[in-house]
C-alpha cells in the first residue's frame, strides 16, 4: 500500500476535482474529495447528493469536475450511481464499453444518515460495485446549519439552538458506520482528512472492494462548528485523538483499528479528554456553563463506552 500514498506518486496524479469551486475557506470537503479521488488510477464516475459539495462544484455553466459527474437529487445519490453501474454492466456485457471504471458517490451527513439512508441501504444490499463517501460535517450545512442524525449531543444548530431550557441537541448521533457494517458489505471504514495516508489507503481498498464500500469521513465545517478556518485539519485530528471519531475499518468480516486510534489502543498514544474537543468549537460553547456540565460528562461517558465496544470488536 505504500506506493498508493507516496507523496511523490500522488503529486503526479491528475487533479480530478479542481479549482474554481465555491466552498468556504477552511471547508474540509474539497480536501477529502481530492485525496480520495487520487486513490485510484482507474477512470472514475462520480455521483453526488444535493448539498454544499454538489452546489459549490457545479454552478452552471462552470464545473470543478474533471471526471464524469452526475447529480440528480438529495436523497438518491446511491440509487443514481446504482443506475449508472447497471448501465455500465449492461453496456460492458454487450461490448459497447471497454474501460474498467470505478464508481464513487459523495453525500453529506444529511444525505447519508437521514434522507438518503434507504437508497444507500438498498444499493448496498443489491451489491452494486461503488464506494459511498459520507462527508460528515454533522449537520445540514448547505441550508444553514440544521440538526441531522449525525449531529453530536450538546451541539447547537439552527434547529436545536442552545436555549435557557434545552442545551442544544438532546440525542447522541446515529452510529451509521456500524449500521452500514451490519449490511455485511465487503468494506467500510471511518477516516479523517488529517491522516491523508490512512484515508487514501482506505479509499484504495474501497475502490477495489469488488462490491459496495462505505467510507465515513469526518469533515470539519468552520461555519457550522464555529472554529477558525485555519484549524480544520487540527480539529479533525482532535476528533480522532479524543476517540470522538475513531479510525477503523471493516474488511470482509474483520474489524481493525488504524492510525492514531490503533496507537491509542496499543497504549503508544494518549487518549485526550473530550473536553479538549468540546472547547475547540463554538457549537459546544454553552457546555462550559456549570448548568450544562452534566451534558459534557454524558458525552465523555458515551465516547468511552463506544470506544470500549470498538476495542472489543477490534480484539484489543
Amino acid at each position: 500500500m505504500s506506493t498508493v500514498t507516496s507523496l511523490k506518486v500522488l503529486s503526479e496524479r491528475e487533479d480530478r476535482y479542481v479549482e474554481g469551486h465555491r466552498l468556504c475557506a477552511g471547508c474540509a470537503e474539497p480536501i477529502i474529495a481530492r485525496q480520495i479521488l487520487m486513490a485510484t488510477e482507474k477512470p472514475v464516475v462520480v455521483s453526488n447528493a444535493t448539498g454544499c459539495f454538489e452546489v459549490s462544484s457545479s454552478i452552471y455553466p462552470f464545473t470543478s469536475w474533471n471526471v464524469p459527474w452526475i447529480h440528480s437529487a438529495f436523497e438518491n445519490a446511491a440509487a443514481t450511481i446504482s443506475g449508472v453501474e447497471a448501465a455500465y454492466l449492461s453496456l460492458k456485457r454487450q461490448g459497447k464499453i471497454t474501460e474498467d471504471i470505478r464508481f464513487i458517490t459523495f453525500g453529506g451527513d444529511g444525505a447519508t444518515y437521514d434522507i438518503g439512508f434507504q437508497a444507500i441501504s438498498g444499493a448496498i444490499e443489491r451489491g452494486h460495485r461503488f464506494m459511498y463517501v459520507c462527508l460528515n460535517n454533522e449537520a445540514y450545512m448547505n441550508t444553514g446549519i440544521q440538526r441531522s442524525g449525525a449531529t453530536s449531543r450538546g451541539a447547537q444548530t439552527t434547529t436545536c439552538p442552545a436555549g435557557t431550557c434545552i442545551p442544544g441537541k438532546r440525542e447522541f448521533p446515529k452510529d451509521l458506520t456500524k449500521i452500514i457494517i451490519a449490511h455485511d458489505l465487503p468494506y467500510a471504514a471511518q477516516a479523517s482528512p488529517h491522516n491523508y495516508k490512512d484515508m487514501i489507503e482506505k479509499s484504495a481498498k474501497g475502490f477495489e472492494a469488488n462490491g459496495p464500500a462505505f467510507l465515513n469521513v469526518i469533515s470539519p465545517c468552520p461555519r457550522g462548528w464555529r472554529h477558525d478556518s485555519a484549524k480544520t485539519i487540527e480539529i479533525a485530528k482532535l476528533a480522532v485523538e479524543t476517540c470522538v471519531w475513531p479510525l477503523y475499518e471493516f474488511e470482509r468480516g474483520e474489524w481493525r483499528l488504524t492510525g492514531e486510534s490503533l496507537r491509542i489502543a496499543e497504549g503508544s498514544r494518549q487518549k485526550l479528554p473530550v473536553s479538549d474537543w468540546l472547547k475547540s468549537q463554538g457549537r459546544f460553547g454553552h457546555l462550559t456553563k456549570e448548568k450544562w456540565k452534566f451534558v459534557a460528562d454524558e458525552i465523555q461517558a458515551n465516547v468511552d463506552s463506544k470506544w470500549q465496544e470498538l476495542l472489543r470488536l477490534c480484539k484489543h
Partner: protein
Amino acid sequence: MEKVAMNGDQVIALAWKQIDPDVVAAYPITPQTIIVEAFSEYVADGLVNTEYVCAESEHSAMSMCIGASASGARTATATASAGLAFMWEMLYIASGMRLPIVMAVANRALSGPINIHCDHSDAMGARDSGWIQIFGENVQEAYDNSIMAFRIAEHMDLRLPTMTCLDGFIVTHSLERFEPLPDEVVKKFVGPFKYKRSLLDVKNPTTFGPFDWTDFYFEHKYQQVDAMRHVIPVMEQVQDDFAKVSGRRYNIIEPYRLDDADYAVVAMGSTAGTLKDIVDELRAEGKKVGSIKLRLFRPFPAQELAKILQGLKGVAILDRAVSIGASGPLFPEVRSALYDAKDRPKLKNYIYGLGGRDIKPEELKHVYKQLIYNEGELVNFLGVRA
C-alpha cells in the same frame, strides 16, 4: 402474426423483451406487478441483455433510470399510483435532464382511502412534469404504444421521457387477443439507442445535473417547452411508420363516427372503447352522435382537438380523475382549447370511475341524453351516491 391472448401487463413485458433495453429498474406495485414479474422471467432465462435492477422503492427506481439513461443506456420502467406519486420529484429531474426514459403507468387511484383500482389521478398528478403522456385503450394499444414510445422519447428533436398509460386492471389484467409483431420487426422499428453525451464516456467527462441560478434556469425550462412543441409531428411520423410495419393506424386524437354528428363525448383510456359501442347503439336509434378518443394528453393537442370539436352542438368531457375544488383535469384544457373556436359547442364535464367504479353503458347513454337535451350541471359526477 397470429393473434395470441395476453393481458395488458404481459404485452408490455413482451415489448420490452423484443426491444431489449439496456437497463430496467423497477419496483413492484399493483396493478403494474405483472410487467416486472413477466420481464424478470425473460431476464432469468437469458433472453435479454438488460441489466434488470429490483429497486428498493419507486423513488430509487426512477433515480436509477436517470443514472442509467445519462450513461447512454436505453432505459425503461413501470409503475402505478402511489409509486408514480413517490417518483414525482424525480420525474421533473428526468425531463429536466432530457433523458428519454420510457415508463408504463398502470393507472390506479391514489390513496387515501387506499384503493388499488383504476382511475387517472396518478398520471394527472404528473401532467406538469415534462413527460410525454400517451393513453391506450386496450391490450393491443398497450403493446403498440410501448414500442412507439421508445421512438418518440428518443427522437433527437425531443429527448423527452415518455409515459404510456393503461387502465389498471381493466387493461393490465384483462386477457385479450392481440397481434404481436415479430421480434426483428420491433428491433428494426425501434433501432439502436443513440445519445449525445454519456456519463460513461470517461475520455470526455461531462457534468450532469449542475446547479442553475436565476441566470439559466428559465432558459433551460424554456428548452423543454420548446421540445414539447415538436412532439406532435414526431408522434404522427412514428404512428405513420408504425402503420407501415403493423397495419395498425393510430392518431393522437381518434374521432369515431363524428362526420355528421351533433354531439360527442371525449374520453381517454379504456372508456373510449366502451363509448364506441354506445355510439353504435345510439346511431342505430338514429341519434347523430360520435365519440373521441384522446391518445395524447401531454403535450395537449389543443388546436387539433379544437378543429375536431368546433361546430358540434354539445360535447361531454369524461374525466377519470378530479381536481378537488375545481373540475376534472381534462375538462378545463378542452374548454380552453375551444375558447377561440368559431363555433363553440356547449361543454359539460363528467367525472366518473374513481377508484375503479365501473362505468356502465346506461351511464354513458345518460351522458349523451343530457347533451342532447342540454341537461345536467357544468361539472357532473357519474354513478356516485351523493
